[in-house]
């Protein structure tokens, strides 16, 4: 397993480089213009000058090379400087956003806390709710619990957040006034009071997001459990006199986890990526909001950097999932 992990990690480098190239070419090919949001009152000549100032006049391969150098050489130096107080990066140009004219990574780091607070909590809560629901629904298939679970999760999944988000705002913020409709990103948790306020403003976005996560994962959990509950080994385990709890929660669950682990691993990069629509509805302004804003403004350095970070996480978590398969089912080998 160790050699497999190392081999995959080494292989990840060219894969990621290739992915970054594809992303770059895709962004180049996509129609759009960083000047699209500039008012029409600005004459075309001025827009042309502004494009040149962004470096758009240079040929494509030079711009790609520049990004590679900035991202893989200068940004790590900046990080090192930040941690160790050195000054490797002094004077070097970092990856600069076209919208804000500031280093992309600074903005990303600024956005991380609120993204992790909201989307991360929702994901965690979603998984924690989904697993027991999925297990019990399968164990008691077609019981009232299963029926209600199915109904709620399917309706929850069919209703898109652009609607459910507004619905909960109208009910809980406008009519009842229990929770704020706008997330305050400047709130710092310093004491019990501010922690409560933080919880209060997280309730709505987290529940909207968690509903989607729960629906998805509980369905996969249930299906996978159902597949395994009728297998021979379950019968054998029961015949051996193992307790029901042990049979279901140890043997069946372990064998049913493979698809669920896959789904969970696929979702983790998405936590970092934020939830575009939910963030927009509640004004959380996390990374999802940053990405969609950058795409709409054709802020290519920002989009390129963000998508590349997602790519790294995707490759990493898919690798983790692959390793987890081997742990869950030792018969799976990759050599």
């Amino acid at each position: 397993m160790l050699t497999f992990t190392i081999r995959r990690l080494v292989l990840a480098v060219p894969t990621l480089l290739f992915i970054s190239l594809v992303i770059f070419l895709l962004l180049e090919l996509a129609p759009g213009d960083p000047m699209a949001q500039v008012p029409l009152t600005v004459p075309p000549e001025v827009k042309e000058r502004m494009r040149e100032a962004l470096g758009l006049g240079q040929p494509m391969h030079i711009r790609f090379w520049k990004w590679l150098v900035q991202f893989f050489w200068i940004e790590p130096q900046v990080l090192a400087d930040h941690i160790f107080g050195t000054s490797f990066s002094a004077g070097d140009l970092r990856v600069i956003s076209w919208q804000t004219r500031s280093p992309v990574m600074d903005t990303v780091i600024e956005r991380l806390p609120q993204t992790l607070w909201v989307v991360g909590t929702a994901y965690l809560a979603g998984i924690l709710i989904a697993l027991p629901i999925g297990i019990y629904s399968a164990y008691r298939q077609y019981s009232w619990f299963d029926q209600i679970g199915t109904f709620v999760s399917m309706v929850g999944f069919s209703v898109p957040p652009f609607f459910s988000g507004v619905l909960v705002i109208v009910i809980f913020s406008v009519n009842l006034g229990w929770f704020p409709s706008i997330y305050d990103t400047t709130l710092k948790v310093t004491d019990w009071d501010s922690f409560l306020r933080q919880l209060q403003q997280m309730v709505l976005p987290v529940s909207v997001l968690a509903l989607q996560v729960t629906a998805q994962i509980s369905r996969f959990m249930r299906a996978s459990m159902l597949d395994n509950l009728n297998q021979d080994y379950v019968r054998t385990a029961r015949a051996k006199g193992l307790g029901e709890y042990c049979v279901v929660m140890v043997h069946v669950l372990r064998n049913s986890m493979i698809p669920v682990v896959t789904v969970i691993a696929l979702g983790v990069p998405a936590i970092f990526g934020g939830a575009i629509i939910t963030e927009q509805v509640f004004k959380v302004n996390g990374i999802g909001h940053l990405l969609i804003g950058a795409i709409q403004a054709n802020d290519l350095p920002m989009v390129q950097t963000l998508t590349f970070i997602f790519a790294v996480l995707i490759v990493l978590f898919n690798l983790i999932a692959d390793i987890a398969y081997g742990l869950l089912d030792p018969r799976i080998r990759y050599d």
Partner: protein
Amino acid sequence: MTERDRAAPGDGLAPASTALPGGAGPLETLAGPPRSQWLNVWDRFRRHKGAMTGAAIFALVVLAVFAGPLLWPPDATLIDIRARNTRALTACFSEGEPWGWEGPAAAMSRFFAHIGAVAQCFANPETASARISWAHPLGTDQLGRDILARMLMGGRISVSVGIAAMLLALGLGSAIGVVAGFFRRLDGPLMRLTDLFLALPLLPLLLVMMLLFREPLSGAFGPERGIFILIVCAIGVTSWMPTARIVRADVLALKEREFMLAARSIGTSDSRMITRHILPNVLSPIMVSATLGIATAIITESALSFLGLGFPPDFPTWGRLLFDATDYLQQYPERVIWPGLAISLTVLSVNYLGDGLRDALDPRGGGR
């Protein structure tokens, strides 16, 4: 697609874990002339209450959206500005005095007064306090377009896009997942391809697809069919990856099971292994992906048309109707309820269908 429930007699040795358990298959094979396993599946499917309900609702939805326009002829794009913001007939229920509790007798009389007002409203909607009319049973939108007609026309697009895109994503995902899981040599490249697709930013990808393929496709298939193909492909091509990963994971585990070794030891060919032993066993995650996929496809389609990448703006779809109605949530709640209900019903019915199919194909699950 599957013959999982019955050990093919010709194979000689029955794969241990699929055929031995006391399901219906082998017994019936022994009892009389070989009975097609498909009949068994159908029997189980037919007896499955959930599946039949799901099938009935699904058939109803499909029938409504495809044949409905014949029964309800008004044009979905016709603007009747004088009839704009007509409430749905359900608004009749809020006619009359609001309820309250002032002793049983008062409440009783209020209740009957309310029933009377509601009945009066249904019989003669023109007299109601809100603007209600039998000409528009589900009401009209802000331009006076009939919502029932829009729901029917929108459903045709949403249901066909949803199903076609889901099938494409499922087909792609299952094929790539099975191949990657089964053939070790292809696993690496195919999974890296999956990583690549997962990493690509959706919106620029769609913009590029539209840029490259819109004109040629509308040239080859006509504007509407061209856009349909493009949208189905766009959604399909950007949503097969989770299915592929899940299917592959299941196949990896499945491949090491005893019955696979047994099947291989008697020289079963790869393609036969896949169709006979692998696919039937990874069906349940595929079914779940199908249900979730349909919902995602319907919503994604609305996001596309909202971005100006989909059908022309005057073409209604359920997702779009829902989006447009969200602003009017407080004034005209029924406008969000209709499309929300339609999407949920479709997804639920597909979900129960999938459940039934899964149960029917599982010979051991039987009796539930």
